């Protein structure tokens, strides 16, 4: 009986392990007041109590799902600590807007940076109506994400607002779901019309809108680690609602300069996402009917699916690439083809393979490179000598093997097999395997007789030797008179 109970417990633990995100499932939600969580109950419920998406746009609560272990805290709480004995206490942090100017001693900018450095993920929800805490402003500055001065700003758009809720203020933006930043990027945030976030691309199915109510816009620096998830439309601008002048004369930023939802992925693949409007995650704007200005019919917002995609990406449920193994071997007949030898010879034929998986919500799937992109192998000593495309060769249920065969260049030394695949929204892949490459041993050069160019010279020696033998024979044959002569002289 007891063993049965423990077995069931084990099975339960195993299933929880299986469905949690690739980076862990401990989520800390920080709210001004814990009671506020009711306003986000759908969003938080999606994180905690999972839902299954069915094709006929029905949301069905189910026993399997995202399974985050959520803890709620306020910034003022004294027990709040992101670290315990030098280890992270939580895997992810979700910060909702708070009214206080600072976030208290437990959430200083340093602590948040340390959390990122320790590979923790942060989802930061801001709001246009409450000033952003100054500690968050300085954290964001560290990542080159800039907020409006005075820590407050409101994004409005007089051409894309929702007529049902914001006919006066024009501060509820209705935006099409974002497409890929570039055609060769993987994109996780374009939703099908029914709102299912889907790691796969679904071209032509992008319809429907995401509501962005009462939000604050950010501008992003030039760093390669930053990428906007949702850009503001070109007709929008951000102003400070506190300034009570009739005309807006001091814009923070306008048009697509403004990023409404921005993503930062550190070099250790920790993720920080800034959502400009906390309201877009609230129950009010999940599946609400909105009517875009100039249109007659109202449509439902896709905020729920968008929130799932954004939180899923931030908490490492999608876009996480795992290197299962790396293997390289000599690819020559008649020689030992052991895996991962430490030494090669110049001009050896070598095969390099790397197996990659991608985490998709609850399981690992084979990683596929976007159509216009390439996964490349660099064979390098300081600088690359070869940069070769890795082609998918074997695909299994949860991994794809990419490999390439090539001839090592005529250069000996210490070389690296390097796969350095860093793309926006995908966790970083950096695999370096060092090998020594020696030159030819003295007995490994091709013999002259196998090089056809050398045959005339081989023949030259042959003719010389044969001629010499003939000469000696004739010399000895003509010897007797000469011998007698020399004998006489002696």
């Amino acid at each position, binding site marked *: 009986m007891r063993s049965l109970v423990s077995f069931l417990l084990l099975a339960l633990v195993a299933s929880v392990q299986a469905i949690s995100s690739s980076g862990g499932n401990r989520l800390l939600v920080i709210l001004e007041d814990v009671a506020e969580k009711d306003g986000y109950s759908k969003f938080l419920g999606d994180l905690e109590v999972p839902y299954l998406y069915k094709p006929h746009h029905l949301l069905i609560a189910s026993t399997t799902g995202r399974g985050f272990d959520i803890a709620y805290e306020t910034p003022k709480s004294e027990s709040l600590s992101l670290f315990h004995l030098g280890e992270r206490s939580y895997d992810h942090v979700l910060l909702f807007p708070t009214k206080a100017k600072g976030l208290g001693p437990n959430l200083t900018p340093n602590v948040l940076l340390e959390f990122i450095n320790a590979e923790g993920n942060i989802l930061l929800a801001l709001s246009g109506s409450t000033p952003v805490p100054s500690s968050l402003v300085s954290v964001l500055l560290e990542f080159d994400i800039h907020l409006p001065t005075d820590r407050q700003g409101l994004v409005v758009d007089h051409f894309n607002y929702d007529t049902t809720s914001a006919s006066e203020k024009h501060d509820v933006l209705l935006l099409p779901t974002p497409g890929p930043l570039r055609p060769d990027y993987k994109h996780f945030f374009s939703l099908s019309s029914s709102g299912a976030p889907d790691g796969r691309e679904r071209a032509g199915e992008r319809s429907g809108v995401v509501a962005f109510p009462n939000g604050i816009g950010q501008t992003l620096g030039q760093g390669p680690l930053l990428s906007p998830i949702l850009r503001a439309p070109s007709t929008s601008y951000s102003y400070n609602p506190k300034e009570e002048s009739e005309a807006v004369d001091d814009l923070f930023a306008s048009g697509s300069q403004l990023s409404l939802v921005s993503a930062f992925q550190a070099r250790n693949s920790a993720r920080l996402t800034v959502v400009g409007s906390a309201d877009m995650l609230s129950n009010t704007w999940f599946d609400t009917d909105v009517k875009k200005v100039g249109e007659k019919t109202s449509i439902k917002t896709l905020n729920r699916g968008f929130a799932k995609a954004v939180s899923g990406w931030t908490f490492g449920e999608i876009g996480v690439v795992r290197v299962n193994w790396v293997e390289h071997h000599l690819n020559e007949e008649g020689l030992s083809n052991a895996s991962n030898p430490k030494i090669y010879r110049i001009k050896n034929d070598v095969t390099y393979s790397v197996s990659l998986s991608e985490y998709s919500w609850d399981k690992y799937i084979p990683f596929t490179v976007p159509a216009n992109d390439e996964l490349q192998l660099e064979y390098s000593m300081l600088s690359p000598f070869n940069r070769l495309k890795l082609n998918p060769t074997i695909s299994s249920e949860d991994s794809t093997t990419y490999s390439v065969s090539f001839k090592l260049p005529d250069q000996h030394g210490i070389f690296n097999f390097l796969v350095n695949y860093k793309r926006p929204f995908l966790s970083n892949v950096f695999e370096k395997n060092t090998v020594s490459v020696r030159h030819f041993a003295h007995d490994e050069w091709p013999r002259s007789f196998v090089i056809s160019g*050398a045959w*005339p*010279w*081989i023949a030259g*020696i042959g003719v*010389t030797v044969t001629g010499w033998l003939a000469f000696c024979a004739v*010399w000895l044959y003509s010897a007797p008179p000469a011998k007698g002569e*020399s004998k006489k002289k002696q």
Partner: protein
Amino acid sequence: MAPKKPATATGPATTSASTLSSSASGQIDKIALNIVQHYQKTTPQRTKLIDTFMAFLVIVGGLQFAYCVLAGNYPFNAFLSGFSATVGQFVLTASLRIQTTEANKSEFPSVSPERFVPSVLFSGQLVQAIPKRILLTFVPSHRAFADYVVGSLILHFFCINFIN
């Protein structure tokens, strides 16, 4: 083979006499004919044999060098060993020719057997026991040829090794 012709001992006197007596183009033909006749008359059989072999080596070496110039020198070690086998053989043969020419006999006293055999290699008793035929190789012309054979074999060994 031009350089070797003046080497014949009695050459210079005859050629200078003929240049004085004749004139212009017919003169050159006459000189050449004279030289050839003189060469054929006065050169021993073995020296003629050496000259033929050397001419053969020059042709073989020239062909190898021409191939190198036309077709490139890869693999270079093959060119080096092939060409140097021919050149080396030529040099050794030239040495043999110098040593075996009657006129140069006084130049090479060191190859004479009288001093060499008893003092270095053999005791007096042993010399008696050595067969006549072996002793014959210490006769100057024989000794020069033996040197030549040994030197050539070493050269061939090196070249075949080097061409691998």
